[in-house]
């Protein structure tokens, strides 16, 4: 049991040690790299003076709100496109042409339309989260066992019933994968928006640390973001188990 718990730590520990050693041996001098010991110290300080906790709250709020809105839209569109071939084909050009527009290129427009703050960040996060949900939900819905869709037709399930009782449960494991992916993307986009423009949250912290030439602090922020993302993922997996039990994990555990 205790070995099982340490297994995930071995690889990162080894890498960190190697990096520390390398930094010491080469007398690392850089404005964007710092030895792990310095990073840890900076992390501890920033945690203690509450700058990281406050920034975390801001970032997570924007990321979650955007994730909720974006994935709801993506889920709805993905199911609609997955069920209805005609709709999918009609929207193909539009969707595929809008999807690759990097929100970072449109940040100035978003800024002028919405100003600094949560609103702009949430909109951009939502925009980014729609697509993975849409694409993966659509493909999940398409690969539902055709016999099950026939069962729903034979029972004359109404469209909402069909979606609630057949489509979503059958596609749930994949929808969850998409959601986990989107959660990661939400965090990334939120931080990116903060780095580029929005003066709140972890991204702003990174930006300031960078401009202050505090590589240790900047990397501390990065490590912290990784930890948050990791915890978020664990939380989602636990929630998936708890909420949906067998259904969500159908075939998801070996």
């Amino acid at each position, binding site marked *: 049991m205790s070995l099982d718990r340490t297994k995930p730590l071995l690889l990162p520990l080894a890498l960190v040690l190697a990096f520390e050693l390398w930094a010491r041996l080469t007398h690392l001098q850089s404005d964007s790299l710092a030895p792990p010991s310095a990073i840890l110290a900076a992390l501890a300080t920033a945690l203690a003076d509450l700058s990281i906790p406050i920034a975390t709250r801001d970032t997570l709020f924007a990321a979650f709100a955007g994730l909720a809105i974006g994935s709801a839209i993506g889920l709805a569109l993905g199911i609609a496109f997955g069920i209805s071939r005609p709709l999918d084909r009609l929207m193909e050009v539009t969707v595929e042409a809008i999807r690759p527009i990097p929100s970072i290129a449109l940040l100035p427009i978003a800024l002028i339309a919405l100003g600094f703050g949560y609103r702009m960040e949430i909109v951009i996060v939502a925009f980014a989260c729609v697509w993975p949900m849409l694409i993966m939900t659509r493909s999940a819905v398409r690969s539902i066992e055709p*016999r*099950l869709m026939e*069962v729903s*037709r034979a029972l004359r399930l109404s469209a909402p019933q069909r979606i609630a*009782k057949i489509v979503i449960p059958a596609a749930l494991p994949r929808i969850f994968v998409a959601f986990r992916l989107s959660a990661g993307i939400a965090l990334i986009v939120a931080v990116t928006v903060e780095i580029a423009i929005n003066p709140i949250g972890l991204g702003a912290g990174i930006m300031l640390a960078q401009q202050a030439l505090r590589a240790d602090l900047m990397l501390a922020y990065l490590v912290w973001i990784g930890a948050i993302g990791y915890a978020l993922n664990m939380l989602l997996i636990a929630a998936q188990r708890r909420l949906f039990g067998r259904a969500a994990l159908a075939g998801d555990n070996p």
Partner: protein
Amino acid sequence: MSVVARLIEVRAARRQKPLIAFNAATLRLGGKTIIENLDLQVRPGEFLCIVGASGCGKTTALRLAAGLYRPTSGAVTFEAEPITEPRREVAIVFQDYGKALLPWRTAAGNISLALEASRVPARERGARIEALLRKVGLPGHADKYPTEMSGGMQQRLQIARCLAQEPTTLLMDEPFGALDAMTRQGLQDEVLSLTQASETTVIFVTHDLDEAIYLGDRVIGLLPHPGRIGIELDVDLPRPRDQLATREHPEFLRLRRQLFDFIKATEH
């Protein structure tokens, strides 16, 4: 067939007002003609059995009647209306039972699906599920998931779900294929008594000739490549039928022989 005879036949069919009718129905799939020019009338309350060699088109014909396929040409009608979609009063038992069950729902949940579809209030469902499970010989298995059930049990579960629909028409595709002789006979009688009592119309696909004759008012044998009717036998055996008496009836044995010869001739 002479024109006059054909005319008389057409009139007779009109008088009987078929519930389900195939009118010169042809179906092409993947570039091949699977069913060709099928003409078939099923009267309300009739128990029609379909037999035929493996791959001759039985399942396909049933799917046409269910509205899961639409004919490439010709028509398939239900109460004289072309069938475009499955109807709620028509229940379908699929041949591949394993794929037709929701793996994330227990046995009770799978039956419940049909009850939910017909908006049976939640508090009534429990008792009805119980009764249905008992009917197909699965009492006490309500909480099992399909993957925890044997092949025969899954097959019976699917039948229970179809009965939960309280259909006026039952389309059954080899529903007892995975059952042992005794369970099978029990379910045959169960289906017979249910359908006779409520005048349910049944189209029943099977590869067991005895079963077809034992159950049916009429048995149709399909010929393969493409699927069309090769033999049509009216079964004039007294009802209610009895597993021992009916199977020993001389008419039963005669029909059996006839069907057997037909099937034998279709091979090769």
